[in-house]
């Protein structure tokens, strides 16, 4: 055991001393933090996008303007909610409703918008609260360029707009210039054409940007709203009443029968916790993948640098193998431990938007037993994959040779990533059940199903399967390791490897 520990210690120290290890430890939380921060910043600093409307029908320009403005007011209300959360005095609650469902936004607009709400919020805000910054208007309708005659044929108008839409020319905006993001062309028969699904389109949205769908969706909402309003009027329905009725929002209570009596209500935190297994699967994958690379590289180094022979004169092949397994497992656990600790500490320290949900979600994750499950899946998954990667390392003369094995192994290891979302959505479905019983995927699948309380029989069975597979693969790896570590030159054939595993070869 002393020699196994000495080897484990050296493996741990060698890997822990590398820059790669420390970059790995800090990189993942850093990338997550940067991604979160950057996406939040980018969302806040998204530039205004300008579009023109050529409304030959005379029916839709105003509803579109209204729709764009309403959406902007909704984003203002959302920003106000976040502002209030960040700047409320302790123990204070805002008097106004800062939710962003339709009726709440309508109330906000009717009450006078931002200024009115800020006036009512100010008594409960911190004294040194910064001034509220209104979000940028994401979409702004501008006038057609002067040289384009709105009354000309549609083809002529579009031909005139093309240089602007292609970025060759810039449109005049508030004394300056900006690129034209989109153009909406409404033919004279647009009202009737809106419901016509054959022939030429009476309503055409032109833009080179196919990724941003917010603007066409907003326009579509406006078109639908106006078309329906006209139909209501035509049929004598009171439009104001319809609008009022449509603004209602039914309350749906969600309950989980699996929770303790009296606490069955499903909160947002519960729903987040329910999706956490996907994050754990990803963490499991990335940690296993990282440590397997280390194990493979170290094994190949010992073989290609002929260190194995010196080691074998001092310790048994099993002591070497167990030492390597322990050392690299230590590295893996340190890495995931650091990652998990970072997430929990960050969750404790975070007080920004969504903090009221993140804290309880973390508590729910801790209470759910997912962390012990993660550690179990990591350890058994580690032993299963270590059996394979140790064998590959021992069989290859150098890293180049190992790459030919790594390709197929990578593809095999990618399956849990491709399937993790589907398994999370249907944790007891056919896919989840099948993958549970394929040993290479059992750790990932069981981790993913952890929050959905899989049947106890499956849980025990899958654990036993992982243990049995790990033992079998490590036992085989032990035999391959002993035979292959001193062998150089041509890679052994499969039949020879089978002979080694069966113990029928000359050592």
């Amino acid at each position, binding site marked *: 055991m002393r020699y196994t520990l*000495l080897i484990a210690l050296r493996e741990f120290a060698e890997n822990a001393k590398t820059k790669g290890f420390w970059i790995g430890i800090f990189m993942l939380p850093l990338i997550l933090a940067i991604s979160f921060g950057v996406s939040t910043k980018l969302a806040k600093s998204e530039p205004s996008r300008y579009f023109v409307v050529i409304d030959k029908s005379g029916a839709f320009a105003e509803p579109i303007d209204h729709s764009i403005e309403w959406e902007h007011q909704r984003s203002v209300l959302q920003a106000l909610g976040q502002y209030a959360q960040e700047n409320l005095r302790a123990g204070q609650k805002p008097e106004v409703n800062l939710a962003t469902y339709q009726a709440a936004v309508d109330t906000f607009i009717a009450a006078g918008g931002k200024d009115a709400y800020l006036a009512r919020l100010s008594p409960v805000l911190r004294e040194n609260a910064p001034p509220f910054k209104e979000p940028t208007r994401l979409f702004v309708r501008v006038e057609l360029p002067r040289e384009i005659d709105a009354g000309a044929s549609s083809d002529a108008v579009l031909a005139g707009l093309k240089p602007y839409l292609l970025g060759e020319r810039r449109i005049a905006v508030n004394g300056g210039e900006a690129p034209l993001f989109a153009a909406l062309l409404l033919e004279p028969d647009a009202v009737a054409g809106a419901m016509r699904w054959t022939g030429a389109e009476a309503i055409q949205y032109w833009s080179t940007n196919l990724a941003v769908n917010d603007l066409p969706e907003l326009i579509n909402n406006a078109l639908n709203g106006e078309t329906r309003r006209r139909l209501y009027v035509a049929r004598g329905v009171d439009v104001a009443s319809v609008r009022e009725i449509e603004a209602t929002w039914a309350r749906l209570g969600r309950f989980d029968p699996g929770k303790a009596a009296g606490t069955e209500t499903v909160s947002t935190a519960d729903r987040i916790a329910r999706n956490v297994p996907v994050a754990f699967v990803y963490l499991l994958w990335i940690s296993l993948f990282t440590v397997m690379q280390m194990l493979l590289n170290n094994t190949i180094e010992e073989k290609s*640098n002929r260190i194995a022979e010196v080691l074998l004169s001092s*310790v048994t092949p099993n002591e070497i193998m167990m030492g390597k397994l322990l050392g690299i497992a230590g590295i893996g656990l340190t890495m995931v431990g650091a990652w998990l600790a970072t997430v929990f500490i960050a969750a404790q320290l975070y007080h920004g938007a969504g903090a009221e949900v993140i804290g309880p979600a973390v508590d729910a994750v801790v209470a759910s037993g997912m962390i012990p499950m993660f550690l179990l899946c990591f350890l058994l998954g580690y032993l299963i994959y270590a059996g394979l990667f140790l064998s590959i390392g021992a069989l290859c003369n150098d890293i180049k040779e190992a790459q030919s094995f790594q390709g197929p192994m990578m593809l095999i290891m990618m399956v849990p990533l491709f399937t993790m979302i589907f398994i999370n959505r249907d944790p007891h479905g056919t896919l989840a059940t099948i993958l549970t019983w394929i040993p290479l995927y059992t750790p990932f699948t069981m981790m993913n199903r952890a929050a959905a309380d899989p049947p106890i029989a499956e849980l025990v069975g899958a654990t036993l399967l992982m243990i049995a597979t790990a033992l079998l693969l490590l036992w085989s790896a032990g035999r391959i390791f002993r035979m292959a570590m001193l062998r150089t030159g041509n890679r052994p054939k499969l039949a020879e490897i089978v002979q080694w595993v069966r113990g029928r070869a000359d050592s």
Partner: protein
Amino acid sequence: MSGHVLELENVTKRFGDFTAVDDVSLSIPRGSIYGFLGPNGAGKTTTIRMIFDIIKPTSGYISILGASSALAVRRRIGYLPEEKGLYKAMTAAATVAYFASLKGLSRKTAKQRAYSLLERYGLGEFAGTRIQALSKGMGQKVQVICAIAHEPEFVVLDEPFSGLDPVNQQVLEKLIRDLALLGSTVLFSTHVMQHAERLCDRMLLIAKGRKIFDGTVASAKATIPRRVLISTESSIEPLAGLDGVAEIKQLGDSLTNPGAKDWEIRLHGQTNAQTSAQTILERCFQGGIVLRRFDHSEPSLHDAFVALVGADASIKESP
């Protein structure tokens, strides 16, 4: 305590149909420097790997320091394999200390021993240098130090001189002698006969997996017939039938003496070679043989090696 640190009895190793080591027996006396010689592919490394229980013999018995497995006495033995290699990212001192601790030394003692040995063999200033930054020769010295840091009773050095420059070869020769002086037994394999000639008390020669000689260096040299080489333009008729001469053989035209021919005069093994050579020289003067060359140098171990390896792989043993 047995007088032998290592005993092999009828050891054979087969890999499938190939016999790498064929019925080899040997005994290495305690405190000796023992040469293990043989051409490439003779089975030296396979034998050494069996000695260290890295691979198992197909048949036969091995006893090392009285144990049947080297792992049982790993603290008392040291090994430098033919294929040298170390962890590139480790420093020289950490490497020596690590391998010494694998041989049973406490981590503290291993560390102290590492620094002291590196200092003694001229690598003190490189103790903190990573292996990858050392020259090949320095790396090899570090590995030799790894093999002896735990002060083993028995050290096996497989081709320790390969890749070393002449200066470092001398350092290594000194190190081997130091080990013997301190009471260790050293077994080393080599292709370079000069090292064996200078260092060995005894030597074992194997070829094609079979032992072909086991004895002292002097007795190895004695296995080849003594000879006198001459170059002359004269007839060598006067030398025919001379006492002590076993055979006279023409080697062809002399390359160094134009017009002369080279002759090899083989002497009887039983006669005094010095006396026989003197008799031949006297007969040459008496018979009017004009000599361009008269060579009666001692055969080297190299000559013995070539002669023995070239001969049938029959066992030749001498005291």
